[in-house]
């Protein structure tokens, strides 16, 4: 086709008509594309609800769902005046948990029915504390946190005493309320720390929590 040759009005009309239809078609297709994008956005939003719900499922668990009363054994297993390691199977486990479902704890029977049950996890960063009966201290192997026999903080990086499990005694058997790894967020029952000897740590001023009344007979106020 010779471009220099003027096109007749009829031909021009045909060309214009074709362009108009294409433009109209483009406008329609662009609209449909945007519509489909919007539709997919809605689908994605609907899809996201179960996915986010699945992902955040563990986060929204309530503590009460995991917590249960667990039998630690007859009181006679825990001689008065001693602190002993006890282990229990966590109330919530899966079949493939293996040994990780067995949780240890420290049971301190002061006298009669007066008992304290401490979590194994150091209040600093969760490492397993060990009881030293001679020096009457719990020592943490990770960063050297130390606790007195009643679980109160003695020295090192922990900012509080050992976590304590709620416990009760039924038919001369010891039961504790457990099920969740104790951390600073899931504050297990915070005991009023005992003061060992008044002003025992002169380097630190006595905080209000240190002024609480002692609860055990062996401790001096």
């Amino acid at each position, binding site marked *: 086709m010779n471009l220099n040759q003027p096109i007749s009005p009829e031909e021009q009309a045909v060309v214009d008509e074709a362009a108009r239809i294409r433009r109209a078609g483009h406008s329609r297709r662009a609209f449909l594309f945007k519509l489909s994008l919007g539709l997919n956005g809605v689908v994605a939003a609907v899809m996201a609800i179960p996915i986010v719900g699945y992902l955040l499922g563990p986060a*929204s668990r309530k503590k009460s769902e995991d917590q249960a009363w667990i039998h630690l054994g007859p009181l006679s297993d825990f001689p008065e005046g001693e602190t002993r390691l006890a282990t229990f199977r966590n109330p919530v486990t899966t079949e493939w948990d*293996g040994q*990780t479902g*067995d949780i240890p704890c420290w049971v301190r029977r002061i006298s009669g029915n007066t008992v304290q049950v401490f979590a194994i996890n150091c209040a600093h960063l969760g490492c397993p504390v060990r009881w030293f009966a001679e020096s009457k201290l719990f020592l943490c*192997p*990770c960063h050297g946190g*130390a606790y007195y026999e009643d679980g109160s903080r003695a020295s090192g990086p922990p900012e509080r005493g050992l976590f304590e499990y709620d416990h009760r005694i039924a038919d001369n058997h010891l039961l504790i309320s457990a099920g969740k790894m104790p951390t600073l967020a899931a504050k297990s029952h915070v005991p009023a720390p005992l003061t060992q000897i008044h002003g025992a740590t002169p380097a630190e001023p006595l905080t209000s929590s240190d002024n609480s009344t002692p609860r055990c007979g062996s401790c001096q106020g």
Partner: protein
Amino acid sequence: MPGLKQTSINLYQWFEDRLGLGQPAIDAAVHEVPESTASWWYVFGSAATVLLILQVMTGILLGLVYSPSAGHAWASLEFLDHSVKLGWFLRALHGWGSDFMIAIVLIHMAQVFLFGAYKFPRELTWIVGVLLLLLTLGMAFTGQVLRFDQDSYWGLGIGASIASRVPFIGGALVNLMLGGPIIAGPTLTRFFALHVFILPGLLLAFVGVHLWMVLRLGINEWPMPGRIVSKKTYARDYHKLTQDTGIAFVPDAAWKDVIFAAAIMLAVMACAFFFGPFGPTGQPDPTIIQTAPKPDFAFLWIYAVLAYLPPSLETPVLFIAPVLGIGAMLLLPLLSPEGEKHWSRRPVAVLMVAVIAVTLAVFTHLGTYTPWSPIMDAWTSDPIPATYLHNRTPLERQGALVLQDKQCRNCHSVGGSGGLRGPALDGLASRMTEDQIIRQVLQGGGNMPAYGNALSPSETTALVRFLTTLRPANQQNAIDASRKLAGQ
């Protein structure tokens, strides 16, 4: 055989006609780079990539055997080490490859920082690089979790305890991290998904973006003092430099990368062969509490910092310091995109690298022998040196027994053995009077617990008597000067 050669070319051409990937790849390989970049200082990025490929390959091979079940993971590692042919070597390659990768990534980062490579127009390359560093460390931590042993179990405990300190949402974060109320099966599977799918996927994608930008923007030229980066002129200057001094990346510059990559691979293989795989240590059984958990090498410095932070500062430092540190790294190229690139004109940058390197090295070194940790069996394993018992009264010798029995040695060394948490007791009597020792033992203080409840009066007397004999032969006992003044 000309026939075979022609057949090969035809075969390549057949694929190339359909794929069209060969020519762009060749163009990218032979693109011109400034001659100054063909340097041994420019080999770390490619070495990190090669190590990543090694990690992916060895990781997939370990995945043939590893069982991501809390009840079986540890046994499957033992199986790999002892029952699968060369399983130990694959585990060792993967473990050493991870340590090498972290080291090379850090060196690469220090190098591009000192060479000013993060400045215009490579700001985003640096930012993606920071994300790659974080992902690499994330791979190291999740990989340590998959080596499901005692260190891994209690390392998760440390991670959960850190997460629990986040204000308001700490509890939810712990649940999210553990996948349940305790460290158990669901915890291991989610870390498996992180280590095997999520983090490597992100890592490979970001490496792709990082490399794409290196190709697109050109490799950073060797900096010269006084050659100032300016957004107006940089593109033109770089183009001219490449035109004037350009050499083909492959092979003129890349041969050094290739040799270094081979050297690194040989080093990884040698370490794997001679030192073997890492762990696993004891079984992940929380009821076995006779353990001193420790993180892997790359995290020892954090472990040390956590031991030294005062309790009141710990939570704020744990959450504010990383935000500031990572934020500063991400913002660095945006805050200083122009100016001098050469290290000799950037003394603060050089000082920062030196201070950070020394700090990390010191804390890592401390983390290797953890002087802050009590030595749990020192009281039964380390005897009192015999010289400290010669010519002592029965009471003093009884005191030495009290020192052993009351586990003082777990924190205090005598004769060079024992814990390092408290001061060594060898020269104690020349520093403290008897009264001061009594007060310190009974009431504690500083970092020492009070022993008032754990010692009877007679034990205290014996112990303190023994301690007052511990002084160097040529020194006097410490005295209370005020007593003399008071005429006592």
